[in-house]
């Protein structure tokens, strides 16, 4: 307990310095600003804004990125409630009741409950990270290459199981991502792989470029192809504060959402998306008036919003302690760390306590800022929504292009982004999810490295993955997951969970 307090004191000492507060503030504002824009989710937002953090110190960069992440999430809920367009997948369920509340003239309370619920969930999740991370990192320090390899297999399998749509396609996308990740110089032999004589490829394909293409460009094109249809309840955002009854109805939902979201967030591939879907179904099941759901029940906003924020935060746990991303956003965070010259993993906590605890403390600070800033600023965000998309997307493209070009002042990067944009578009049309691919992409070299080392240590005996207890645990868990999902009954159930959005 004392240790935790001591750590949190270090953390707040870092997070509450004026310069870091400023970066958290800028991050939250930028994140919300872009998150509010329909069709640009947190992954694209972070990928787009990543280059502006390159010149910062590692602590400041991570604090700002985390701020961008929460901001983008928060912005996503705002559009879900006001325009019925989920800014990102995890606020899809918020649309169901949030938008109905807005239509009944209760947009204000819906937004306020979403914000307050998220804040509460954020506080709990921050504490949870502070408590759970050190022991986990302790365990992780004992991991050898075999354990890491199995853990990555488990993480990737879990991510595909929890992804939307066809399981086998998701696995194929992961494998494809792993292969793309191998492009460049092989660390062991120094051989250039899949570079086809292009010198720019010898350092590999930048993951920011891939993410911006697959998510950014592809999302913009998808939005242009859709005819614009938006119904915005601008004039009706008045009485912001929820009534006493609202509070009475939703405090339990907030608690349940927070608990569920915190657990699901830790799971690889889970994160915010599954948390919000799960919380919504749970609320509907335990409610005394399930018929009210979908017609503007405040519980239907409070629970998923708390859950997705809790999940968003606890998904930092595997990233910070194991160095393994649990979703595409965390993959970007790891990429950001690597660009800053920090190898993510359990050693970060001991070697760079100010970075680790500073980030955790800044999560709480960021959450507080969002509530304090955004409730009064809702009017401004709403105004932004009335800007037609035909002005927005060229502006977004300008930022993306500058961001990618400034990575190394090389037009080749922009070309690669274009290629992955076309690929992302085709994948979207073929119903192949890009998120598992990004995870594979970032894990490709790590997996190969650990596989090689494990096999070298075991003298080429592949059973090592099943004879070491921790490694065997991950492998068995992965197999069980795959079998369960392949079972027809569960398969149906899984589809139902995702269909509920419609």
């Amino acid at each position, binding site marked *: 307990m004392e240790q935790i307090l001591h750590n949190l004191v270090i953390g707040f000492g870092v997070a509450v310095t004026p310069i870091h507060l400023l970066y958290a503030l800028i991050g939250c504002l930028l994140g919300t600003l872009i998150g509010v824009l329909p069709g640009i989710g947190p992954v694209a937002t972070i990928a787009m804004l990543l280059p*502006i953090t390159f010149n910062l110190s590692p602590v400041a960069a991570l604090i700002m990125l985390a701020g961008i992440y929460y901001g983008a999430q928060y912005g996503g809920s705002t559009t879900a409630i006001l325009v019925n367009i989920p800014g990102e997948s995890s606020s899809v369920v918020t649309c169901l009741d949030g938008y109905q509340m807005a239509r009944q003239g209760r947009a204000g309370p819906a937004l306020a409950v979403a914000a307050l619920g998220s804040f509460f969930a954020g506080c709990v999740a921050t504490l949870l990270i502070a408590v759970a991370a050190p022991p986990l990192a302790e365990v992780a320090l004992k991991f050898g290459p075999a354990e890491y390899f199995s853990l990555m297999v488990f993480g990737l399998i879990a991510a595909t199981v929890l992804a939307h749509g066809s399981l086998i396609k998701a696995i*194929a996308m992961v494998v494809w991502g792993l292969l793309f990740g191998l492009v460049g110089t092989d660390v062991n032999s120094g051989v250039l792989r899949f570079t086809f004589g292009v010198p720019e490829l010898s350092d590999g394909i930048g993951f920011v470029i891939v993410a911006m293409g697959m998510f950014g*460009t592809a999302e913009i094109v998808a939005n242009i192809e859709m005819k614009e249809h938006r119904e915005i309840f601008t004039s009706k955002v008045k009485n912001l504060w929820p009534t006493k009854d609202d509070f009475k109805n939703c405090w339990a939902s907030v608690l349940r959402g927070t608990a569920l979201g915190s657990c699901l967030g830790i799971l690889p591939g889970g994160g915010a998306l599954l948390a919000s879907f799960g919380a919504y179904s749970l609320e509907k099941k335990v409610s005394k008036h399930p018929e009210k759901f979908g017609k503007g029940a405040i519980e239907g906003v409070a629970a998923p919003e708390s859950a997705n924020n809790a999940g968003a935060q606890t998904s930092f746990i595997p990233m910070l302690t194991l160095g393994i991303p649990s979703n595409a956003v965390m993959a970007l965070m790891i990429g950001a760390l690597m660009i800053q010259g920090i190898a993510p993993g359990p050693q970060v906590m001991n070697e760079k306590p100010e970075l680790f605890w500073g980030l955790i403390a800044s999560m709480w600070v960021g959450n507080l800022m969002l509530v304090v800033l955004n409730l009064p600023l809702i009017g401004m965000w709403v105004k932004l929504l009335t800007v037609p998309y035909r002005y927005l997307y*060229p*502006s977004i493209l*300008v930022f993306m*292009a500058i961001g990618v070009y400034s990575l190394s002042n090389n037009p080749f990067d922009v070309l690669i982004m274009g290629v992955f*944009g076309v690929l992302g578009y085709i994948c979207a*049309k073929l119903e192949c999810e890009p998120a598992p691919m990004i995870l594979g992409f970032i894990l490709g070299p790590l997996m*190969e490295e650990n596989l090689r080392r494990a096999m070298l240590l075991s003298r080429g005996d592949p059973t090592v993955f099943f004879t070491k207890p921790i490694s065997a645990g991950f492998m068995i868990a992965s197999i069980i997951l795959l079998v369960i999902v392949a079972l027809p009954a569960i398969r149906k159930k899984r589809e139902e969970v995702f269909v509920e959005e419609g």
Partner: protein
Amino acid sequence: MKIKSQKDFWSGLMFIGSGLFFMVWAITHYQMGTAVRMGPAYFPAVLGGLLGVLGVFILAESVMMEPEGDKTLAIPFNIIDILIAVAIYVALGFGAHLIGFSADWAIIIGTLIIAVLTIMYRPNAKGLVLITAATVAYGYLMKPLGLVLATAALVFISAFGGHEFKWREVSVLYIILIVFSVLVFVKGLTLPFPLWPEYFS
């Protein structure tokens, strides 16, 4: 045999094709090594093979399983269009190489040709192609023409990819964006972008 899900059919082909490519290329160009000391070809060859197998499953599913939901494919271009686009780049690349020009110009000219061809023959693919072309043009025009003109190419070409295009609106948008870019990125974040064409400076 009838294709029941076009989406799965083409995904299957895509995975088989790229899986085989990675596997064959790795085996023929790099050393396999052994399971104890894996060579650079080992992991990609295994993964490529795995991707190919997954592709075969997806392909098989597309002709055998009754699909749920709408599985007709709505891509506004076909595989021949993609091959034509690639051929244009390759031909221009060789041409540029022969007359001693930089490959950058081949990419700019190729991109513009493809953009024009798309507007003429594949109007439904306008959104995708013009947005991609706009960003690529931006990247390759930055060095020779500078930020001000490259941004103009980006904004006008991409805006032309949308539903409606009004010169006045887009011009105003361009002026706002270029002022913002110069103030924030060049003056504020001091990114080393040239503002004007090399010729003037």
